[in-house]
């Protein structure tokens, strides 16, 4: 490590003191630091990256109590020794000036806060909660979070009788998980290593990055695997693809129906597999036998010959081929997203690639132990979900475990939600229609547990309880699996690499404080170290061993198999027709559903979005390193096809006004050949509007500004790309 200079030292110091409160440990003398850094021992601590939902295994290198760098864990199946830019950036967020350094209490409606002590914060929140629960019942509490990151809140909610645990999933990918669970009994993941043909539709592994996936995809390509990318945008994955096929956005369903039709009519599909493992094939075929490649071509803009060619490639290479199950790209974007996801299951089933080398596999799993319960007090009866997820007459088909986060202001207005907790979640920026989301502040009590001054905390929270940086805490081990095929599950955990540099706490300690103040004794009667031991005990792994290795791989349990396949559905088969849907009066099989809206005028475009490879959705825009890349690359620009730009007289870098039904904003344009003419593309990252996040504030715009907070009636997603905008120069 190069010696730190005085100026960069001062910068780091100024950065941390720029926030309201005084930092304790960072205010050190430069000479003392420089001297210590020379002689200090280098410590290597394992953790799990917090830059996106992939949670790559990382090694944190710490010198003299200060983070030097992170590297990818070589065993961890998501990182395999590598990391992406946002991973490196998020680690350096320990020293980010946007951090909240101690608990805050709102003092007025103008977003002014005053620092308070943790004891005061816990006491006041506990008392307010008691009053509200006493008057209106415990089911009026909502816990909204990113999802998948914590396991503590449900215990608290169980005690007070709330069932409204909401994740961000409907704003992201809920159609996928819902449909796969209904049709195939769970998620399946692609085996890149052995595939001869990889078809990616609306999935950009080089933008929404999973390092090990890219490592394996590029390695497979070197061995001769063919990569086809279907995407309205020439995405980063298209850079290395054998073929990029731009598709008219919103019509992927037609493309899939055309593929299926060709597979079936040309006899390319795996009849034995379908006979043995598919339920509802005839029903599917009955409704779709007229939807041929020509019909698909007329809708999606990909030539009928090309559709047939891809279908044949799938058939020829089956079962060592897959249509990648996708992620955010299509699974929450269109009126027909549900059907798109159904067709994804169906096409993979038609080529019979389940449990086949180069096909798709379920995740390997393992179970961890848990500490003995420490609370034996009364438990309130479970309340009704405030968001209506899984509730008859409301959103019966939405998985209650996911919830519906985009309509929290409605729940508040109707009195179904009075206490709202946000844990590491920022719907004001990550859910549609921020002006609507701002009404969250009307709840009786809003508590946000963020890391930085995010919009939700700044505009709506009554109390902000800062969580520490992920490198500043240990966490109970997690089973590592999913996203991509790997035969064995792994176990990994976060270990504490750094002392908290300010007055922030881990979630466990925050919840201990709140529940105790609320009057629940000993709900979390264990330390995180005890939790770790209890979790690992059934596996015969010691905490020390896990800390030394960072990630431990268990025995392989998911391997290719030829027969005896069983799916976790009612019929034990892949169900082309969803029973739950039929029960609700819907058709069980997918058929063509047009997109909700279509651009028609010369200056109308569909607004689509996606991840830039060096940013996560919204949460990295205050990072100086990542924003430096944005500055160099003009990363905030909106992409527009060159022929459309020509028509409107727009040139590279020109400022344009973009208007939807609910918002008008201005942004510069990047004119490109790599985008379908019918749409404009925005990186999903920018548009920070919390004034306290100075680096990201007012840089760029966000697609959520332009879309209303809608709920798909089946899987609850937001239809994030059903949005027409008009664009005028200037």
């Amino acid at each position, binding site marked *: *490590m*190069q*010696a*730190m*200079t005085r*100026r*960069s030292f001062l*910068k780091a110091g100024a950065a941390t003191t720029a926030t309201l409160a005084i930092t304790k440990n960072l205010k050190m003398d430069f000479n003392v630091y420089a001297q210590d850094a020379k002689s200090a021992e280098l410590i290597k601590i394992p953790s799990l990256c917090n830059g996106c939902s992939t949670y790559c295994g990382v090694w944190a290198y710490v010198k003299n109590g200060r983070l*030097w*760098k*992170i*590297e*990818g864990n070589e065993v961890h199946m998501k990182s*395999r*020794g*590598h*990391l*992406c*830019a946002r*991973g*490196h*950036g998020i*680690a*350096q967020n320990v020293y980010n000036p946007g951090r909240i350094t101690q608990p805050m209490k709102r003092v007025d409606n103008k977003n002014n806060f005053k620092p308070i002590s943790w004891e005061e914060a816990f006491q006041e929140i506990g008392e307010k909660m008691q009053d509200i629960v006493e008057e209106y019942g415990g089911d009026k509490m909502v816990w909204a979070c990113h999802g998948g990151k914590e396991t503590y809140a449900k215990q608290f909610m169980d005690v007070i009788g709330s069932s409204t645990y909401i994740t961000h999933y409907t704003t992201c990918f809920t159609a996928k998980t819902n449909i796969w669970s209904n049709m195939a009994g769970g998620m399946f993941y692609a085996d890149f290593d052995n595939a001869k043909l990889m078809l990616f539709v609306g999935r950009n592994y*080089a933008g929404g*990055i999973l*390092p*090990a996936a*890219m*490592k394996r995809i*590029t*390695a497979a390509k070197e061995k001769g695997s063919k990569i086809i990318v279907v995407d309205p945008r*020439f995405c*980063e*994955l*298209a*850079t*290395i693809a054998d073929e*990029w*096929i*731009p598709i008219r956005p919103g019509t992927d369903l037609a493309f899939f129906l055309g593929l299926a039709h060709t597979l079936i009519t040309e006899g390319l599909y795996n009849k034995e597999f379908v006979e043995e493992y598919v339920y509802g094939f005839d029903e599917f075929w009955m409704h779709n036998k007229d939807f041929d490649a020509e019909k698909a071509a007329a809708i999606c803009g990909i030539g009928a010959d090309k559709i047939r060619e891809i279908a044949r490639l799938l058939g020829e290479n089956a079962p060592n081929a897959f249509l990648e199950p996708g992620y955010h790209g299509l699974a929450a974007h269109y009126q027909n997203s549900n059907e798109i996801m159904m067709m994804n299951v169906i096409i993979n089933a038609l080529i019979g690639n389940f449990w086949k080398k180069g096909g798709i596999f379920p995740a390997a799993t393992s179970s961890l132990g848990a500490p003995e319960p420490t609370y034996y007090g009364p438990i309130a009866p479970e309340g009704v979900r405030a968001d209506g997820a899984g509730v008859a007459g409301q959103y019966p088909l939405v998985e209650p475990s996911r919830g519906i986060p985009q309509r929290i202001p409605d729940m508040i207005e109707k009195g179904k939600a009075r206490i709202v907790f946000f844990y590491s979640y920022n719907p004001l920026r990550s859910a549609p229609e921020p002006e609507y989301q701002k009404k969250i502040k009307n709840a009786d009590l809003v508590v946000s547990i963020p890391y930085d001054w995010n919009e939700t905390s700044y505009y709506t929270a009554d109390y902000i309880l800062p969580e520490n940086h992920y490198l500043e805490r240990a966490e109970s081990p997690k089973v590592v699996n999913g996203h991509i095929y790997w035969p064995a599950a792994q176990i990994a955990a976060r270990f504490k690499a750094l002392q908290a540099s300010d007055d922030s706490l881990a979630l466990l300690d925050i919840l201990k404080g709140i529940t105790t103040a609320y009057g629940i004794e000993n709900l979390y009667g264990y330390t995180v170290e005890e939790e770790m031991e209890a979790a690992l005990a059934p596996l015969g792994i010691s905490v020390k061993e896990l800390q030394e290795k960072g990630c431990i791989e268990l025995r392989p349990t998911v391997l290719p198999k030829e027969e005896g396949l069983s799916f976790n559905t009612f019929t034990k088969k892949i169900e082309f027709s969803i029973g739950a849907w039929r029960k609700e009066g819907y058709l069980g099989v997918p058929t063509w559903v047009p997109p909700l809206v279509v651009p028609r005028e010369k200056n109308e475009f569909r607004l689509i979005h996606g991840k830039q*490879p*060096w940013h996560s959705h919204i949460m990295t825009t205050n990072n*100086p*390193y*990542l*924003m*430096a*890349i944005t500055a*160099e*690359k003009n990363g905030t620009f909106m992409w527009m*096809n*060159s*022929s459309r730009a020509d028509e409107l007289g727009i040139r590279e870098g020109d400022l344009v006004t973009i208007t939807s039904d609910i918002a008008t904003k201005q942004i510069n344009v990047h004119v*490109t*050949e*790599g*985008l379908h*003419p019918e749409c404009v593309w925005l990186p999903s990252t920018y548009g920070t509007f919390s004034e306290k996040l100075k680096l990201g504030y007012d840089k760029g715009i966000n697609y959520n500004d332009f879309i209303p907070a809608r709920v798909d009636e089946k899987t609850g997603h937001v239809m994030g790309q059903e949005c027409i905008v008009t664009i005028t120069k200037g």
Partner: protein
Amino acid sequence: MPNYVMFIDQDKCTGCNACRIACQTQWGLPPEMNYNFLIEQERGKYPNVERLIIPMQCQHCDNPPCLTVCPTGATYKRDDGIVLVDPKKCIGCKYCMIACPYNVRIINEQGVPEKCRFCAEYVTNGETPACVSTCMNDVRVFGDLDDPNSPLHDLLKEHELMQMREDLKTRPRIYYAQSKRG
């Protein structure tokens, strides 16, 4: 004495910029200062599009023009071929930046035009440069050309190679795979 070279397969790069920031943290650089970067260029006409991405950094020339022009010998070449700057001797005349054909030097806070160091102190200890190890697509491969077991040998043989500005006879230690894109 090792003979360090780097192989870059530019067609494998998808532009994630991890190399840039991994290097920045490795060397404790401020956000606005970077030793490597990606040159990106879009080619073709919709829908036949290609994106050229070229990872750039100090080429560690065997005949470094920056070393030739450095008046005080602050820029020097180690026996293993790595070109470094001795900040103690650097007067900050920036002549190296004028002479370098690759635009890869950047002035640091001490006024020294610094650049990629091939992670010199680390590779001597057997470690891999940060830009190499963090890359998910294995775009870069670093090694000792004189080591018969290095995977570099096969890679350099398998690929059609090119070097930056061969016309200037700088003899870079970075070999690029010739791009197969337009």
